[in-house]
């Protein structure tokens, strides 16, 4: 909530917005609609019986079942492995792209580059998925290389625009005077980047990385079509259960994931506050 209000106070006309009638009521309604399903999910992970809709009594059996379930554990590990690697590469690429599109003035092809970077956002995911599937199939045939690298590559590509946007926003907010001052003091471009730009850019980079991580973690369609043998991620595993009936183990795993994400976001928030 603190982040939300700081967002609002930066925009003009914030006073009028907050004083609008029903503003508080609408905010609570929206938050409820967003989080009520998740709350139900979490509550039913502690349910004793097998049904995901009828409550009997409190129990932790699904957590022990989920932690002992080899398939869930493997799927979660693959999800995290792919997400971390894809986030790492995507953030690097996105930082370079953001610097190139904000700090280097007008050049031929600049808006085309921006459009290309943001392309995964605009094209329906199923189209990207099928195109990637066809393309990788040809490449696999030509090179004979198999393995999880392909899936990581696909994830990196669609994570780049998600990392790109916060970094670019942060760059446009930052004034160039710091970098100009560093240049005046005989710093080389690399030194400027390392000692001036990057530290100032860090909040944007971290935000971009987090966004990319989350997007990679819950991707379904592209992963469904591109993943090879032994590369089942957690969302794919859960999807595969639907035809045959979902057990509350899924609720338990999801609750654990939500818990981890909340902890990560909170940590990042506090880290950023300290930086200021």
């Amino acid at each position, binding site marked *: 909530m603190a982040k939300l209000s700081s967002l609002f106070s930066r925009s003009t006309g914030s006073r009028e917005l907050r004083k609008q009638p029903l503003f508080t009521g609408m905010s609570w309604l929206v938050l409820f609609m967003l989080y009520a399903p998740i709350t139900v999910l979490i509550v039913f992970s502690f349910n004793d019986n097998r049904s995901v809709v009828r409550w009997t009594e409190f129990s932790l059996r699904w957590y022990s079942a989920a932690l002992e379930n080899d398939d869930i554990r493997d799927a979660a590990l693959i999800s995290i492995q792919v997400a971390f690697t894809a986030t790492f590469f995507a953030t690097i690429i996105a930082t370079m792209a953001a610097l190139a599109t904000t700090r280097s003035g007008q050049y031929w092809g600049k808006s085309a580059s921006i459009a290309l970077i943001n392309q995964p956002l605009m094209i329906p995911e199923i189209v990207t998925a099928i195109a990637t599937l066809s393309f990788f*199939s040809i490449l696999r045939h030509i090179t004979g290389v198999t393995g*999880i*690298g392909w899936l990581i590559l696909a994830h990196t590509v669609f994570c780049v625009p998600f990392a790109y946007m916060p970094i670019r926003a942060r760059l446009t907010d930052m004034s160039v005077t710091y970098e100009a001052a560093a240049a005046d003091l005989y710093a080389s471009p690399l030194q400027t980047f390392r000692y001036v730009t990057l530290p100032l850019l860090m909040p944007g980079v971290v935000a971009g990385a987090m966004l990319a991580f989350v997007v990679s973690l819950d991707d379904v369609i592209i992963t469904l079509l591109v993943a090879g*043998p032994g590369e089942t991620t957690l969302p794919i595993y859960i999807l595969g259960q639907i*035809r*045959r*009936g979902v057990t509350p183990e899924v609720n338990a795993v999801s609750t654990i994931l939500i818990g981890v994400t909340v902890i990560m976001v909170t940590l990042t928030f506090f880290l950023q506050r300290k930086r200021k």
Partner: protein
Amino acid sequence: MKQKLLHTIAISALALSAVAAHAEGKLNIYNWGNYTNPEMVKKFEEQHGIEVTLDGYDSNETMLAKVKEGNTGYDIVVPGDYMIAIMIKEGLLAEINASEMENFKNVNPDWVDVYWDPGRKYSVPYQWGTTSFTVDSDVYGGDVNTLALIFDTPEELKGRINMLNDMNDVINAGLRYLDYPRCNSDPEQMKELLALLVKAKDDWRTMDYSVIEKLTSKDVDLSQSWNGAAMRARADRPTLTYAYPKEGFTGWMDNVAVLSDAPNMDNAKLFVNFMMDPENAAMTSNFARYANGVIGSEEFMDAEMLEAPEIVMPAGAPVPDFVQPCDQDVVDLYNQVWTRLKQ
């Protein structure tokens, strides 16, 4: 310079994570999610010293989309009956000549000359079942063995019905009620079918695959469902009765097959032979809760399954109707009807 560095990192990452798919002792199975008995897989691994990976798909069509592009890395897939016919036509399955394998004598002769793979050159039975509907006999006391419950709903069931969210299952049920042929390309008959479906839809509550959850939570009292799902729902709601409508109902069979570009062809053939052993077929049945097509598996199956009316059809029930895949123009017509129905 940064880009060169990145380039190198990317290539090494790809190379490091590359797994030689042609290693000895591996098998990659691509089956429906939660449909393979893990103990059976372990038994196969120990018996043959082969390392097995198991991945899950949610529909025949997803699997087909991936396999059609080729080089998926999977060896074994488990398509439904109509999908096997499609895949054989497209040349996606390897001709393994299952009928010449050692364990083939155990396969029930009824399942040898089937429309999708006559003589069993490409596939062997995995699980089979029927798709009909199940209804709570406490809510509706009359004769359940008729499709009139879905298309001309009695008062007590109005608004309490769930249909499967499956184009073929819904349209075929309607065609059977009107006594029209399956794979129907007659525009007049399909118009009549659409009118019937749209009118009946008023009495339906939902169109959803999560049949067991809907029935056990008492969200609905009648649901189109597969026989195995109906049996599992009956465990939680004992008054449910699985119907064998006199107008007919769908039969389906999932089959184990080998992809034509399988990297581990020999191991895959070993697995196909393994699946025809009665004890292993029974392990699958006990896990997936459906009938298998292997004789002699009865002595290894759970007693509860051998007594269930969902698994063992009562005498006098019509023969299950295995529907063949329809031509593209019929599928297009069905798609139009389905889209109109879902609006």
